[in-house]
């Protein structure tokens, strides 16, 4: 049997109105929660081998809020999280290069090189100084190009050398002179 609003007594009307308001508040609250939680970002950053995380990777590329929160996580994660100055070093023929600050506990130097041969892939080369531990992760961010987080290859003879296809997101971020590179 169908009952209409006009047929309800006052107490029932109040009960239904209160349920509607509560439901609306829950919906509104749920919409305000970010897609990627801080806990997820922390777990992602602290896991040396996080595997494929397409939702986080997508949010880092496109969502400024997630990018900011992730940088905050990295800064808070541990003392070895390092900011690498983008313009502190220049290497001939390298589209991008940088090295850790003098007061950093680790001596790392990175550079990007274009392959001399088709299909002209890029090499990300990170040289690890003596008495330094090799980084395992790299996060590159730019105001215009977003951010990307890479799991680095294992260092061999003090060098991490990774091949990147020319349309890899890191390439466009590296092209931004105001990029920030964090390695840890």
């Amino acid at each position, binding site marked *: 049997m169908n009952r209409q609003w006009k047929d309800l007594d006052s107490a029932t009307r109040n009960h239904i109105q209160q349920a509607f308001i509560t439901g609306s508040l829950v919906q509104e609250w749920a919409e305000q929660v970010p897609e990627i939680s801080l806990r997820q970002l922390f777990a992602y950053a602290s896991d040396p081998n996080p595997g494929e995380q397409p939702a986080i990777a997508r949010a880092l590329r496109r969502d400024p809020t997630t990018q900011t929160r992730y940088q905050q996580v990295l800064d808070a994660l541990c003392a070895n999280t390092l900011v690498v100055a983008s313009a502190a070093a220049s290497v001939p023929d390298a589209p991008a290069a940088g090295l850790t600050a003098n007061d950093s506990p680790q001596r790392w130097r990175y550079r990007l090189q274009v392959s001399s041969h088709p299909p002209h892939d890029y090499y990300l080369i990170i040289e690890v100084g003596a008495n330094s531990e090799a980084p395992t992760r790299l996060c590159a961010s730019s105001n215009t190009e977003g951010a990307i987080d890479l799991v680095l290859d294992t260092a*061999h003879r003090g060098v991490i050398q990774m091949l990147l296809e020319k349309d890899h997101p890191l390439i466009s971020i590296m092209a931004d002179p105001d990029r920030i590179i964090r390695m840890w």
Partner: protein
Amino acid sequence: MTGTAVFIATTQTPVRILRLVVEPRVSLSTACLNLRASKASISDAYNDFVSLDTGIIARHTQQENYRLDLSDDIAQGNSWQLGAFIGHQLSHAGKLAHCDPSAATELADVDRIIWASGEVDVSGRVHAVSDIERKLAQSRALFADAHRQCLPVCLMLPEGNREPSLQVTLDALQAEYPSLSVQFISQVRFDDPSALPPTADPYLTLPAPRPPAQGFMGKYRSAIAAVSAGTLLLVGALAGVKGFVANSGASSAVEVSMRWEYAKDGRCFSERTRSEPRAVRWERLNKLSLEGALCRIEFDLDKAAPPGTSLEILADQRPLDLSLDRSRVAPRYLLNLYLLQLPKNSLFTINLMQNDKKMESAQLQVE
């Protein structure tokens, strides 16, 4: 430009070296897959194999940073080292056949194949490896393709693997694919033989001609590497010949034309020049004189030749091994002279056969 295709034998599939280039601005040599930004599992080990302080390549080439592209991954072991060494040696001499990943098994622009398995230490000694029989079994499709295309295939194996049981397998394979030859080696040298004077090299010896087999398909011949006393040198040297062609004589019901490839500097695997076709004149002396080294002669049969027609080439009354290309409209026979140590003024006999009966004959003199 043709060249040598190098395949590294593995227990999964023969892995072709697609490309080998210098990357002057990188820090490590890298082994990659299929010309993509994907590293092979042996990449770090490959860097050590090349490196000046731990490896064997850079000390010869004065280059430390290479990119090696492979058609498939090589998961483990060191048996890839002999193939990689040969690839570097050929690449350094400009004789390695490069190709796109999609064409790795098509063997286009390839004039020979080297299939190798062995471990190479820093002094160039070649050490025995395991699973040779399985690697051979996994390469049957490659051998069959090479056989169809009349490409010589040289199997390079460590001397330490020379065992009776393996020999039985190799003999069976060679019976099935006569274009296969086998070289057991114990030591490799990086010397580029093309830089040697075009005279008989002390390290250069060539296998004795194989006795003629039944039919021309059984007369393949490969043996493209020169090996002596367990020392590997790639690419043979040739004695030069000079002059021009002077043909005269009568015609035949079946026409055979010939064209030859020669190289002025003795390098038969690069920069060779092919002549225009000339008709073989039967019952006459066909003189062939060149200023350069004679590498190969092609004999094309008339496409109207009746079934059962074939060619036979003899030197000093001894039949020579010919490669037969049946993929053409009419049969083409290839006489690879760089496989033979022939003195100057060698005299060949060309016999036109019909069901193993000699129908015509001509003489060919190389001056």
